[in-house]
């Protein structure tokens, strides 16, 4: 890379036809090296494609129904509130919101959370993850990423100068893999990946795209390793309220010895079906949050006030109704449970094999039994699932996401026969998808 950089000015002189027709800007490189290798993005690519072909969109993970009335009302109330609702609020989190979050989650975690020290409000969980990596991962640090992983973890590790080390969840051998619970992490495999340079491990429970909800003993295994090797743990729990069939979401931060080394990330977008509000948070020991605050104050500094006010009211309501049938945190998973069933039976009816998720918004399906002629020249060099998904969008008008996008380069080949469906959609959307699949299977 260094040699190319030195030669670059000479190369451009030798090949003037490559110079843009306006004057040559900077013989040396324009972009910062931290942007190298992180420019591709599966969402940018597939969202565009789904829009271009007006596909029935079970791809990107957002609800096509509205947030619950009570948060919408809270937002409207905030908008018509006093002038301070439209001006800067406290940088590290609107006071009302951090107090609501601290109160709510102290009860869940069983640990007194200080609203001003232990909580950082961010622009979506995405920015919370960014702050965690930038604040705590340095050049040469290794970060263990459990696969399949939400795709942003890898470029974020890279941008922080770190090295990603992958450990896959693997389907248990023997029995046919019908549930996300059948995908497990091998303690031996995980241990073997830890080196003196390992700084942190990132887990996502419930997991996107698999839907796995880690059991307490699985988290304990990870916690034991974190404590033994003194690792940090970044726990992405944006789907924490979405568990099915009695699966219980466990917070790794609540296990002994884990509070001071775990950063738990949450999302109002996923919690209240308002992904477009982009309000998220990180909760951790003040010792770690204080470093993340520095990144935050030097990147975005403040988050939008009115949305934070609305989310705060949402949490206060849920605090009072927690565990009761009126709680949105009961109603949403109940509604999604029914949609999950609907999608699964629809997929099975056309001969596909879905992996039932124990939690989250998504369902992955094995497509290896499907015989299609993927003769699109333009996708020739891509992995099977990428090609399949593009074909499905273009030929059948149905959008999904290829699962190998959530795996590392070294393991993606093993997992390129799965595609991901999002079922957090209106019944009409699911029915439209069902119609497409049925027509397709009837033709064969």
């Amino acid at each position, binding site marked *: 890379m260094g040699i190319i950089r030195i030669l670059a000015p000479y190369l451009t002189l030798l090949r003037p036809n490559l110079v843009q027709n306006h004057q040559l800007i900077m013989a040396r490189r324009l972009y*910062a090296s931290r942007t190298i290798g992180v420019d591709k993005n599966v969402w940018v690519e597939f969202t565009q494609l789904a829009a271009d072909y007006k596909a029935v969109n079970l791809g990107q993970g957002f609800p096509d129904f509205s947030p619950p009335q009570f948060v919408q009302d809270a937002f409207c109330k905030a908008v018509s509130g006093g002038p301070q609702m*439209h001006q800067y609020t406290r*940088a590290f989190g609107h006071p009302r919101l951090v107090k609501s979050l601290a109160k709510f989650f102290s009860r869940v975690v069983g640990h007194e959370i200080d609203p001003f020290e232990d909580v950082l409000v961010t622009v979506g969980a995405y920015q919370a993850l960014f702050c965690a990596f930038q604040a705590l991962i340095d*050049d040469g640090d290794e970060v263990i990423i459990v696969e399949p992983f939400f795709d942003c973890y890898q*470029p974020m590790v890279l941008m922080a100068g770190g090295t990603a080390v992958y450990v896959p969840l693997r389907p248990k051998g023997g029995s046919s893999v019908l549930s996300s619970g059948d995908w497990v992490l091998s303690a031996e495999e995980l241990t073997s990946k830890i080196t003196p340079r390992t700084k942190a491990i990132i887990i996502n429970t419930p997991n996107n795209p698999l839907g796995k909800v880690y059991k307490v003993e699985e988290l304990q295994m990870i916690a034991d390793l974190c404590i033994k090797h003194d690792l940090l743990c970044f726990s992405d729990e944006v789907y924490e309220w979405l568990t099915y069939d009695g699966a219980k979401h466990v917070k790794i931060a609540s296990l002994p010895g884990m509070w001071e080394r775990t950063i738990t990330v949450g999302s109002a977008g996923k919690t209240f079906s308002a992904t477009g509000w982009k309000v998220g948070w990180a909760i951790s020991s003040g010792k770690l949050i204080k470093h993340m605050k520095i990144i935050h104050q030097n*990147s*975005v500094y403040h988050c*939008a006030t009115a949305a934070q006010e609305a989310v705060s009211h949402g949490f206060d309501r849920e605090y009072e109704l927690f565990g009761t049938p009126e709680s949105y945190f009961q109603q949403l998973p109940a509604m999604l449970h029914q949609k999950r069933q609907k999608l699964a039976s629809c997929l099975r009816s056309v001969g596909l094999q879905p992996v039932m998720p124990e939690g989250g918004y998504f369902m992955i399906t094995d497509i290896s039994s499907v015989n299609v002629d993927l003769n699109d020249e333009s996708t020739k060099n891509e992995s099977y699932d990428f090609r399949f998904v593009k074909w499905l969008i273009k030929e059948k008008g149905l959008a999904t996401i290829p699962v190998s996008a959530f795996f590392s380069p070294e393991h993606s080949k093993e997992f390129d026969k799965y595609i991901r469906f999002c079922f957090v959609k209106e019944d009409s959307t699911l029915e439209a998808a069902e119609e497409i699949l049925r027509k397709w299977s009837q033709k064969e």
Partner: protein
Amino acid sequence: MGEEESRGGRMSYTRRILNAFRFTCRSFPTNCRRFCTSQSVMASRHTHAKRIEGLDKNVWVAFTSLAADPSIVNLGQGFPDIPPPSYVKDALAKAASVDRMNQYTRGFGHPSLVKALSQVYGKVYSRQVDPLKEILVTVGGYGSLFSTIQGLVDEGDEVIIVEPFFDCYVPMVRMAGAKPVLIPLRPKPGKKTVSSADWYLDPDELSAKFSSKTKAIIINTPNNPIGKVFTRGELQMIADLCIKHDTLCFSDEVYEWLVYKGHQHVKIATLPGMWDRTITIGSAGKTFSVTGWKLGWSIGPEHLIKHLQTVMQNTLYTCPTPLQEAVAQGLLLNYKLMGQPDCYFSSLAEELEGKRDHLAAILQEAGMSPVVPEGGYFMLVDVTPLNQDLSHMGDDEAYDYKFVKWMIKEKKLAAIPVTAFVGEESKEQFEKYIRLCFIKEDSTLEAAGDILKNWRKV
């Protein structure tokens, strides 16, 4: 600042020792337990990344909480206490009532917003601005600065920053591993500083700051805190140097509409040869008096904007949808009114000019020396004439920091110390100035006036 750098040096030395210690401990666990406590091992493990070293101090964090007491007349932090135009609030309420508007939108900018920006700025720049390739929507002007610096400034680069500067420029440049090279605006020789136009950039001094490592220069016009509106000639001088040394220009123009009579906002990107090397930053918060919406934008050529987009997709991915929709509506409404008196872009400036003059008069009556700004919503005031003795406050802070803290406590009036906006070497030049924000209700300005009139009374 030098102090912080050396602290950084010492820190990494300590880290190296701890790292070596840690490695030995791992290899010889039983022996080492006697030598290294688990505390020191944990301390090394939980150290922060080098990039944040020395960046923890922040003037806003310090002064916002001091001024938060409602009994304090707050002319400190730069946000309006006047209401935003009702149609933007209505647009937001309307947007939030549409299902789709509460979910993710396009990462690089909500389609209706980038189209509206393309229209407004197409007119302002007199050139086609591609909504998808030449615009990035960000979390405030702040987020645009961050995306620009992260996307285009590398470790080892130098970035020229004009003092006084909006305080985040320096830590952002340092976080990118680059070196800030500071150059102060200087008062014109002989002249008393009564206007922001009395400060200028010395061309020879500026020229000497450019080196082979210079990646970019950051300018802010209208300038915060002085309120200087750079003239075409001054911008041409800067442009000539950018072209000669083949550097980029990051132009922070968040106060672009707030320019007072007799002055004109000039976009450096419109000067010959500059479009291709300039990122121009704007802000919905400052444009529509909604700082709490935190939406801004970067405009520039595709070959630069694409790198900002890469940063965006790896940092927060997308900005809130209903807010973007509402700003789009506000822009479209005012686009139709551009050039007319009821266009908010000009009516706000007119309203603020009155407040500017009102505050300047109040300050003069109180015996202080205001620097009347040509643009923006801040006013510097020289507090030397007050002769306030602050020796009881010790020696470890610049005079203006001490003055503002004292003033908040004793006089219940908040301002911001101007040395927060300059580097170590320029502190002496600016430490008798404080910054007052005048985008406030008349009643707030009156209350400030009362305090100032009664200054001498104990």
